[in-house]
């Protein structure tokens, strides 16, 4: 009861706030004048902000920026021990540093290490935090490029990557981070540069409290789809998430930018109704996941849950079970991947819901930027199928969805299931993969499937029972994250390049309408059916077997 009220409260706030934030993003990200300070920044960096790029150069600039970001972060993490503010932690091993660098640059933020025992303040602030912002901005850039492909009339240019990047960071993400950060600090999140402080406890023992700039980290972690905890326990840790009020705010922060981006799309396309239609699809998918998750968690069918009497293992008292479920669904459906409870100890079917939220392809509402382009891909498939069914020309915003376009859409859609299933199969087939499982049997398979689903889809949510810090998992996950992030981006930009060349067609009676109940049902159905076709066999062997046979 209270759980539903809390969900209703947070989601209503989200829908209300996504309008002004989305409108602001549309106004400030595309076109308009450069600020004087931005002009200076472009000059320092040797960028001509008024020279736009075709999709190949856009992709090249994006990859150059991302690969250099990985290199810089890798260097910082391995050299940490010789730099200031390391809190005495040594540099990471090369394979862990490589995994971590790719993880944060690809907006995944899967962590094969415990924050409090591994990273000092400099690595968190100047390394992980920077890539948190940057990787989210990269996602927004790709989203903007695809929107331009859809709305521009001819030509080859889809925008200037550097301008999109700088504006996403400095006009959207940073101001929101400052705002949310200050509110969270006001709610009790700590923000200092202290190291470890040993205290004598009330009962006469000792406890070592660990300080740090947590308040400035939280908005980065949540808003950018980053998700990596300052501490191992992430948002279950009372220093990261002290109260049920901060918990509700953190859920909102996770969802706001990806949701607002849908509005931005509607605004830029001059078709606000389209924005609402797509938000409805997202709302239905999110609602289904939330209902399924809550039912599974409340039923507590597992043996241990029945012995306990509730699904309290791994949850915090101040949040309770429904708020942990809401947080879990929000974190997996938004590609953020933060946690406020142990997902490994969720009921088998509840864990399966989180897995399904990621397997939908991170579109409800998905990651920052990446959620929008993933959602547009689903809409394109729906339009194409709908067009075939009723014999109408597949068009979206006046652009024909022909052979070339569908080829990129299909390639995009195949990347994630192929990688997830191939890597999971590899891991369960090799002793190096099996030995890291924290649980045996079907639950162990769920852990591995969850890990690769999370890595390929740039989520970073983890069932923490799996020990990922081995050579095998560090390297295979690095590959899964890198390919799972950048190959789809390449297909999206190629699609944008193909779309932007077209002159839009006039809307006629023969055009499939992308609004109304039937289109919402079609798009929602396509999202669900594609995910089910891809993943039902794997889900049956993992969480379904775990929950039903138990």
């Amino acid at each position, binding site marked *: 009861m209270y759980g539903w009220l809390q969900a209703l409260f947070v989601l209503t706030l989200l829908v209300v706030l996504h309008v002004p934030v989305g409108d602001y993003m549309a106004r400030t990200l595309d076109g308009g004048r450069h600020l004087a300070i931005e002009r200076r920044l472009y000059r320092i960096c040797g960028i001509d902000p008024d020279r736009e790029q075709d999709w190949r150069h856009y992709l090249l600039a994006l990859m150059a*920026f991302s690969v250099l970001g990985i290199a810089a972060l890798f260097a910082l993490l391995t050299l940490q021990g010789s730099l200031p503010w390391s809190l005495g932690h040594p540099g990471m091993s090369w394979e862990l540093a490589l995994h971590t660098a790719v993880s944060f640059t690809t907006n995944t933020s899967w962590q094969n290490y415990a924050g409090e025992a591994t990273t000092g303040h400099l690595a968190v602030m100047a390394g992980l935090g920077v890539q948190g912002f940057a990787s989210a901005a990269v996602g927004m850039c790709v989203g903007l490029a695809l929107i331009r492909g859809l709305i521009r009339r001819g030509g080859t240019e889809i925008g200037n990557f550097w301008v999109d*990047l700088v504006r996403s960071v400095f006009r959207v993400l940073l101001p929101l981070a400052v705002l949310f950060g200050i509110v969270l600090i006001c709610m009790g999140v700590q923000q200092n540069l202290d190291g470890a402080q040993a205290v*004598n406890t009330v009962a006469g023992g000792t406890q070592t409290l660990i300080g740090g700039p947590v*308040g400035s980290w939280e908005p980065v972690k949540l808003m950018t789809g980053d998700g990596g905890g300052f501490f191992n326990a992430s948002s279950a840790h009372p220093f990261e998430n*002290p109260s049920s009020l901060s918990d509700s705010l953190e859920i909102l922060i996770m969802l706001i930018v990806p949701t607002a981006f849908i509005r931005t799309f509607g605004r830029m396309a001059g078709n606000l109704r389209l924005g609402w239609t797509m938000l409805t699809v997202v709302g239905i998918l999110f609602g289904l996941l939330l209902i399924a998750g809550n039912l599974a968690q409340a039923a507590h069918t597992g*043996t241990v849950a029945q012995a306990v009497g509730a699904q309290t293992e791994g949850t915090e008292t*101040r949040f309770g079970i429904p708020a942990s479920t809401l947080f879990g669904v929000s974190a997996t459906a938004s590609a953020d991947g933060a946690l406020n409870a142990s997902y490994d100890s969720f009921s088998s079917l509840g864990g399966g819901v989180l897995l399904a939220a990621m397997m939908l392809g991170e579109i409800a509402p998905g990651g920052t930027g990446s959620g929008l382009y993933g959602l547009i891909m689903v809409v394109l498939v729906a339009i194409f199928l709908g067009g075939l069914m009723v014999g109408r020309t597949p068009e979206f915003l006046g652009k024909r969805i022909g052979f070339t376009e569908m080829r990129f859409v299909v390639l995009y859609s195949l990347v994630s299931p192929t990688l997830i299933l191939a890597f999971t199969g590899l891991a369960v087939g090799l002793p190096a993969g099996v030995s890291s499982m924290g649980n045996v049997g079907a*639950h162990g398979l769920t852990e591995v499937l969850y890990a690769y689903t999370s890595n390929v889809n740039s989520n970073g949510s983890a069932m923490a029972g799996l020990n990922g810090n081995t050579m095998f998992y560090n390297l295979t996950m690095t590959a899964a994250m890198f390919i799972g992030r950048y190959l789809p981006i390449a297909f999206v930009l190629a699609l944008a390049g193909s779309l932007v060349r077209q002159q839009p067609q006039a809307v006629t009676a023969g055009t499939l309408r992308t609004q109304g109940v039937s289109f919402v049902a079609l798009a929602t159905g396509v999202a669900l059916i594609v995910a089910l076709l891809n993943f039902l066999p794997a889900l049956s062997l993992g969480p379904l077997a775990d929950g039903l046979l138990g």
Partner: protein
Amino acid sequence: MNRLPRWLAHHVAALRVVVVLTLALGLLYPLAMTGIAQAVFGRGADGSLVEKDGKVAGSELVGQSFTGTDGEPIKRYFQSRPSAAGDGYDPGATGAGNQGSESVVDVLPDPADPESGKLSLLTQVCARSKAVGELEQVSGARPYCTSDGVGAVLGVFREQGLSGRTTRVVSLNQACPATPFLAAYEGVAVECAKPGDDYSKALVVPVRGDAPAHPVVPADAVTASGSGLDPHISPAYADLQAPRVARERGLSLDRVEDVIKQNTTGRALGFLGEPGVNVLTLNLALDRES
């Protein structure tokens, strides 16, 4: 710049942008936030520290263990929830136990090395329930738990593996020479488990038993939290402990109940999250009284 080929220009620009972003987002942003936080929200920004006798004794946000050096509960203190953070409430190793709901079979310790083996989540729950029951002088019985505080789980061998006549039954979590919680199952005498024996061919059958579905010992008293640092317990668990603490401290039960209320946080805005009792501030308040 313009003389460089365009692909190379991208890389030069990328390098400079990475440097600029590192300075602006990696140093300026967190340091400015730290400055603001320290100036305006000093106590919270420093971690909401609490003092006892003028010395910092912890943070009101971070739970503590109230056990003696022997690991046994100190009876005059309210006890926190079980913790999976290090040896318990260790902020240097936060996290959860991460065991699933079907973690029901123990790896029994080798008799030569009592530290070996691995307890299933079910046995941990059963053992905690039994211990809390004894401490508070109430029944610690739970479904799927034996009276000696391990998971009531049988390994059933059948003629054709999964089906057919039952040939042998082992109580998997009760190491010999324990008396099995059930004398016979489907007409076959139940054996105790021998550490090291391979029971992986047996069908795992948890046995519910006749314990009530809503046990006396509350759920949060037998499960670890997500962080391992949960500062709160449920009001139900606080109420269960109140008579013992009142007795040990020579306070009236009413007085203790009052102090519990003062240290209870309700749902935020009346409907967000769950109510919780802050164990650290509660115990500190009681220490000031007696």
